[in-house]
């Protein structure tokens, strides 16, 4: 098999190609694109997005959906900020608490879905409303502004072009890859997503798998929320409000099956990077604001078309 053929067979190579093309085009359009500061800004802009994509990716893996991913994010963000500002909890304690809250939210979602047998879509829709309600009830829409300096610094510092923030999604990506490829629970999750009946017949407990997926999803959303607070420098109740569409778009463009059973960590990452690149590029290219949305749609279509062409070529050749 030639190298090219092998490359074409890789799921996400179309996306990688689209990203490469995009980078070249933007570097040509804007002289400042390849400066250290701009590359740092770009890398920083998709840290939160990567985790949001992962959060939905794990639920898609079992054939579930988590509509509450943004709501959990918002609630964790203000809880995280609130306990630090109002209760003086140090960062080192606040972060695990935040993750626990996210996991707890996911646990509620998972248990409700499993115990009641009601479609996870509805359950997470209802809990999303509830979590958002708690969020706004506590904050009355006023953000927590006094975040500890080390946290804010973490959100801003960088080594060369690499922001400190990037560490989190990279570690998570590595862990998730290992989890789904090598560990028993991970593989059980995907097996169940692919064919629930066969999985159950071979002894995989539905309850365990679904709850695990939701807990993971909630925890990942919590990590995203913590990063968002660090990035923004304040705990905003509106964190997570825009996450839903991206959380689905990234894994699905990255190759995940909506029905479950197949996900791609790298694919999800490339999808997030591509979307961020397009959005940043539109600002860089000084696109007329009235054209921004149209071009966003056109570019998504182009990227997906490229990937599709790749799949067809690889299959047909």
């Amino acid at each position, binding site marked *: 098999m030639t190298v090219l053929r092998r490359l074409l067979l890789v799921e996400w190579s179309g996306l990688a190609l689209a990203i490469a093309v995009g980078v070249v085009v933007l570097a040509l359009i804007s002289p400042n694109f390849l400066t250290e500061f701009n590359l740092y800004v770009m890398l920083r802009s998709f840290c939160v997005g990567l985790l949001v994509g992962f959060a939905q990716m794990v639920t898609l893996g*079992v*054939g*579930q959906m988590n*509509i509450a991913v943004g709501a959990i994010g918002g609630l964790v963000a203000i809880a995280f900020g609130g306990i630090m500002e109002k209760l003086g909890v140090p960062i080192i304690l606040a972060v695990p608490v935040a993750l626990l809250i996210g996991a707890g939210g996911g646990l509620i979602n998972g248990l*409700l*879905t499993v115990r*009641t*047998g*009601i*479609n*996870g*879509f*509805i*359950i997470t*829709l*209802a*809990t*999303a*409303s*509830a*979590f*958002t*309600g*708690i969020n*706004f*009830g506590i904050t*009355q*829409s006023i953000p927590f502004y006094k975040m500890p300096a080390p946290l804010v610094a973490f959100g801003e510092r960088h080594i060369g072009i690499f922001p400190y923030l990037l560490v989190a999604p990279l570690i998570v990506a590595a862990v998730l890859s290992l989890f789904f490829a090598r560990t028993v629970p991970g593989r059980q999750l995907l097996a*169940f*997503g692919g*064919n*629930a*009946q066969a*999985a159950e017949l071979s002894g995989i407990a*539905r309850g365990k798998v*679904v709850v695990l997926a939701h807990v993971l999803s909630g925890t990942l959303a919590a990590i995203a929320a913590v990063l968002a607070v660090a990035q923004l420098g304040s705990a905003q109740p509106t964190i997570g409000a825009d996450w839903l*569409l991206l959380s*689905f*778009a990234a894994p*699905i*463009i990255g190759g995940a099956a*909506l*029905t*479950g059973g197949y996900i791609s960590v790298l694919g999800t990452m490339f999808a997030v990077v591509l979307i961020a690149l397009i959005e940043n590029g539109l600002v860089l290219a000084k696109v007329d604001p*009235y*054209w*921004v*949305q*149209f*071009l*966003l*749609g*056109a570019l*998504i*279509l182009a990227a*997906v*078309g490229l990937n*599709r062409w790749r799949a*067809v070529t690889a299959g047909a050749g």
Partner: protein
Amino acid sequence: MTEEAIGDVSVQRRRATIGGGPAQLGLFVILIGFWIFFSSLAPGFLSSFNLFNLGREVARDIVIGFAQMVVLATGGMNLAVGSIGVCAVMTAGTLMQTFALPVPLALAGALLLGALLGWLNGFAIVRSGVNSFVITLASANLFSGAMLILTRAVPLNALPPEVGAFGRLKLAGSVSPLLVIALVIGAALFVLYRYSTLGRRILAAGANPRAAAMSGVPVNRVIVISHTLSGLLAAVAGMMVVARLGAAMPAVGGEEWLLPSFLGPVLGGTLLSGGAVSVIGTVLGAALVTTLRSGLLVLQIGSYWLQLFLGLILLLAVLIDRYRGLYAERMRVVRSS
């Protein structure tokens, strides 16, 4: 209508059932239950003013729900529902105001555009083989974007007065003609899916595309038809909004319609995986959520905490429905043994 345990690929689930089953009856009972609950705590809930406004809200949510439902039937999704809606709105407004066309002509133009945009989605999906989620995600941005470019986001608020007057029209003191239109559309869809060949084919294609293709169902054509219908319905919802507001604004529709478009159908029993729809369920599902929101407002739940109560009560409602269904199932087994 059988329950849908997640990931459960039982054959029963795949059977195409439409409306009138025990699940929809349960939803109806719950809806009435909440009406009784809210009106006993706050008599204002049943005032003709409140009922009228409720009716208008529900009408729009029902039609948006239908627009998504007809695509869910084929096993896909339409993320461009709101986008097509706002395009139809601005088209109608432009035709009425800028080109001074008579209102019925402008409406027809807008509906035609909606159908056309829906057709584009369907065509792109079957030709490219890319799944409907991604195609309609891209097209939602394309359509909204084109609308922004063409209209420069200028709202049109000098429409012929009949338009706003129709939105404010009251039949029998508390019923909006918009609600009547929504229910008539529902009846038509009910007939489509239960009694017509096309409807059966759509459901078959959604339930199991390969089997359907092998038994002669033109799966691709059916998908295109469903998306065209979806676009048309989204345009109808857009027209309702224009009547309600008496103006054509670029700020309506869009992403706002996404969640409500799924909520009605899914609550009502339409399967996200395709192959089974419930028209009556969609109507009841949309009505339930609007009722809950309206009821909580009437009860004067604190503004910021309202979302929490909405979520909890929604959960309660589906739990009651679920356990009622299980109980009925159990009783049936007991009785038959």
